[in-house]
């Protein structure tokens, strides 16, 4: 298994449980949609899986390595080398050009391949925009840059948190098509958080989170 969540528990400060004995797994090359109502804990689960956030009990295993013993530096190294993230808010670096943003994660992971990045820019329709800064792009274009940045390091696992949540219907469809196409092309696994059943239907598997439990 590439990613395993085994009886994971997590509560917010104050004691309110947000993940209650959650277990799920994801194999290499698989795509999994995680759905649920607002506040159901979808993003929290993704953050835990991405080693962005800690958990109170259970275990998360990525590529066979448990996350709970890792310190901050170990978690950072894991995020850098073993997975990639796409956020709802794009989270591009505003002071870097499109080309620099595309290459950023790959450079940090020391896996920068200019030809691959150029191919990504072409696939994502960004070739004409590489010298622009994010503030001069539309929301859909920014999210395409974010996907390109995530895929530039050729990750084994892509984690996407509501990647189309800030986009209109047309842009959403384009972004989703591109992301799924690239995942298929690279053989990466995908864990996608969404509240849209239509989007979830396009992935291999679906899991629904409700009251902190997978149902």
């Amino acid at each position: 298994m590439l990613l395993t969540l085994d009886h994971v528990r997590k509560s917010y400060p104050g004691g309110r449980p947000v993940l209650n004995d959650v277990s799920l797994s994801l194999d290499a090359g698989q795509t999994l949609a995680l759905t649920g109502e607002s506040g159901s804990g979808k993003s929290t689960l993704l953050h835990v899986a991405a080693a962005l956030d800690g958990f109170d009990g259970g275990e998360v295993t990525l590529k066979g390595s448990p996350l709970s013993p890792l310190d901050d530096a170990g978690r950072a190294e894991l995020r850098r080398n073993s997975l990639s993230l796409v956020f709802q808010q794009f989270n591009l670096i505003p002071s870097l050009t499109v080309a620099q943003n595309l290459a950023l994660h790959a450079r940090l992971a020391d896996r920068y391949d200019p030809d691959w990045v150029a191919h990504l820019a072409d696939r994502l329709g960004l070739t004409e925009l590489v010298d622009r800064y994010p503030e001069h792009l539309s929301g859909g274009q920014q999210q395409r840059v974010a996907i390109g940045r995530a895929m530039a390091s050729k990750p084994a696992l892509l984690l996407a948190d509501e990647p189309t949540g800030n986009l209109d219907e047309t842009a959403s469809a384009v972004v989703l098509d591109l992301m799924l196409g690239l995942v298929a092309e690279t053989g990466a696994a995908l864990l996608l958080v969404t509240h849209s059943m239509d989007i979830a239907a396009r992935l291999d598997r679906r899991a629904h989170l409700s009251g902190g439990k997978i149902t």
Partner: protein
Amino acid sequence: MTRAILLVLLSHWRMHRLQLVTLLTGIALATGLWSAVQAINAEARASYARASDQLALGQFDEIRDPAGSISLSRYVDLRRAGWQVAAVLDGSIRIEGQTVRVMGIDMVSAPALPAVTQTEQSATPPEPADILTAPGRLLVSPDLAPVFEGLDGYPPVIVSTALPPSFVLTDIGVAESLLDRSGQISRLIVLPEQPLDIPSLGDVAPGLIRTSPASQLDTAQLTDSFHLNLSAFGLLSFAVGLFIVHGTVGLAFSHRRGMIRTLRALGVAMPHLVRIILFELVTLALVGGVLGLVLGFFIAGALLPDVAATLRGLYGAPVDGQLSLRPAWALAGLLMAIGGTLAASVHALWRLSEMPLLAGPGVQAWRGSATSWRITAVTGVTMIAGGGICFAMFGGLLAGFVMLAGLLTGAALLLPLVLSLLLAALSRRANGPVAQWVWADMWSQLPGLSLAMMALLLALAANIGVGTMVSSFRLTFTGWLDQRLVSELYITAGDDAQGQLISEWLAPKTDAILPIRSVELPHETGPLFLYGVVDDPTYSEHWPLIARSPEAWARVHNDRAVLINEQLARRANLWPGDVLTLPPDHTLPIVGVYSDYGNPTGQAIVAMPVLDSIVPKVPTRRFGIRVDPSVATDLAQTLRDRFGLPTSAVVQQSAMKAQSLAIFDKTFVVTSALNVLTLGVAGFAILTSLLTLWTQRLPQVAPIWALGQTRAQLARLELVRSVLLAGLTAVLALPLGLLLAWVLLAVINVQAFGWRLPMHLFPADWLRLFLLTMLAAAVAAALPALRLLRLPPADLLKVFANER
């Protein structure tokens, strides 16, 4: 990876060039002003050391006569007894309106002085006989070469670069004639090589005292207080500059919160990020520091001539007016830049490092809050109390400055809370929606502007405090000059004999002739100048006594009593009722203490017969003449014509006062310049704060624009907001400035110079400063206001379209 992270961090400055310029300017200003002061201090101290080395002083023991000059016979006795000593005669002459220090030394027995060695090794060395026999030779410093050029009546001149400025070195025989002090010796230099079997000094020349180099009061010690004062002002300027750095770094880091969060999400560990940010800060500090060093070098170069003149006038200290670049100074400046930048950034960096990975990127997190203001205010009160306690426990000049630093920093930290309370109170009294919005808006802007306002408060308080101190000093000094310089004419005769002739000729033509006779004596507090005065009502009617016994002047003339100056009184803690001990064994009751501004050394006054009994044969070459003021000018000219005196030997009271005031004003040129520069830095801090806050202004003003206010009205309100905040700060700076003035006058001056001054108030100066502050605030706000005025409506609409 490190390179990639560094490029990401540096890309921020490409997008925010104004922030970069502001940050570098803040570092450069802080470093520049501090380094300028340090360059001046270093140059002055290097001059003292150079002078000491060049004269080979400060390395030999000396023999002095506590009673004044050493007689020729005693010198001969010592030489015959086998003592290897060299005679020295010190003095000064006026040439072409310039005071020139003359040192005559027995060239036959003297140690190898650098200037003499340099002359001997030159391409055309003079014959030794030419130096030792009449007319002799004058070795002069390069600055004196043009002064002696074309002057008759002086021996031939040899220019030597191995001499301090305004200095003449010659054989003692030539110096006797130059100084008109035949047969006198100021001191003897004890040469290092002495026979083993020489008799003791007490046996050969009883009464003479041998002193080691360590116990000789040198120029560097005399001028320590002056340099410490300059350093304190430099430190204040440095602190004001760091406010800009602190504000800019805080804002830059807040703008980068999103970038930092993304980098961490992409797998960069926080400790690694912090190390790279530290590297970035040090690099920026080095760039700003180098700019600051260049700035400081030019400022120091501009100020040094005045400082040199002040040090020469006040202390007779030999200081070159030329600045040289010293590696140690540059290194210290860069270290200050780095240290200051890191100190100003540590809070923002700490907050950044503590930011949770999943925190939002909001700029607001950087800003203060009512709670943090209260914590800051408590810190401020603690610092004020800590400074006060430090001074109460330890006393002294350094503790005085610690108290001052605590007061200023503490008051600055109190400012945000005080301003917020004031704004809240004013907001409650506002009528009409726009007025209510303006006050509320000012309150909401306060966190972003509070650092600039703190810098402004410090600069204004320093201006008011130092201005009040200088003006009080000037007022007191002017009044004191009126009291002290009561004689209508001041005459300097060529020698004792001429002095006697002039005195006899003047006797029937004047109301009184007041001889000015003095001698330098050693004292535990340093050199002490003993003056003799004749029994004349001029003294008792005009001499300014700040503490006195009953019938003080009568006791001076009848009971061998003494008056001492304030410096000596405070240093030795001697007051009326105590006794002053003078060498070898004179004890004189103290009956009064007089103020004596501008004089760094101790001084005492006795009746003329007492002076003669303590030190016989003190020269009588200078006189104060009491005469009807209407005839003073004619009499001065008659004296010059009749006795062949140069113009400078007969000086009228008004000229003497003007000369004294000119020296006084020159003394504070540096202080005034630093005052203006500090205020300029504070004005710049307001400008940069307003500009950096500009990015957050649109969401605040767009709703008001949408509700019907025009952009012109909003632009005007921007100006009003800045001016009002600066005005409130200026009002709060007034009591702080007056408190600062009081500390300077009652604590720092007393500790540094030994005199205490009365405090005077100058409301007109405050008003001028207040108006200047309003103007500076308006100018600083003009650019953001202009931007707002010209802002396309489409940009304001973006706020509502959520496209920003």
